[in-house]
């Protein structure tokens, strides 16, 4: 089981490259039970869309 610190790094990396299968599974499992990390992931995705709107 990974902690939030580890999950945060994985979810950022998943936005840039395909994660190894094992990491993907661990991250998915963590997100299922962790609201804080699910929020963090949505925040990062919102950041992405916001940056695309600049200029």
């Amino acid at each position, binding site marked *: 089981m990974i902690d939030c*610190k580890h999950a945060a*790094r994985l979810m*950022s990396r998943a936005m840039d*490259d395909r994660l190894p299968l094992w990491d993907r599974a661990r991250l998915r499992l963590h997100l299922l039970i962790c609201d804080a990390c699910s929020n*963090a992931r949505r925040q990062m995705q919102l*950041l992405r*869309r916001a*940056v695309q709107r*600049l200029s």
Partner: protein
Amino acid sequence: MPSDIRAEIEAQRPYLLRYASLQLRHREAAEDAVQETLLAALAAEKSFAGRSQLRTWLTGILKHKIIDAIRRSSREQPLEGDASPDELDALFDASGHWREPPQDWPEQALEQKEFLQALEKCLALLPARTSQVFLMREHLGFATAEICKELGITATHCWVLLYRARMALRECLQLNWFGTR
């Protein structure tokens, strides 16, 4: 070349300068990139031929000029800091949990001009290299492999800088935008 096309190209200068200033922190570098873009556009005006929106076409040229400038500056100055994300570990307690659990941000923020301005201010607070890598990824839309190649850094370093940028921007916007609403 008809003079109205020249005038239309010139009229895009403020937009292009804003675009370039986002990626290149030095005003001079941004102005140079825009100047080169306008000159290239005037020289290649025939190849435009209304294939796309003028602004889209010019932005496409500008992106190449920006990459050239980034490439030049990355040769001149080495990357700051190391590749360790440790300073961000302060966001988590000893058991790896968030000290301040991230909140559910309202999507409507995207529609607010002031929110985008707050984002730009937060971007300006990032270390230059961190924001450069982040903007190459999220604004110019480069794959990490391309960013690594252009800047001569490892994939791991690239991921760390992107992670750092995202976490710092999260914190900054929580403090200066979402937390105050």
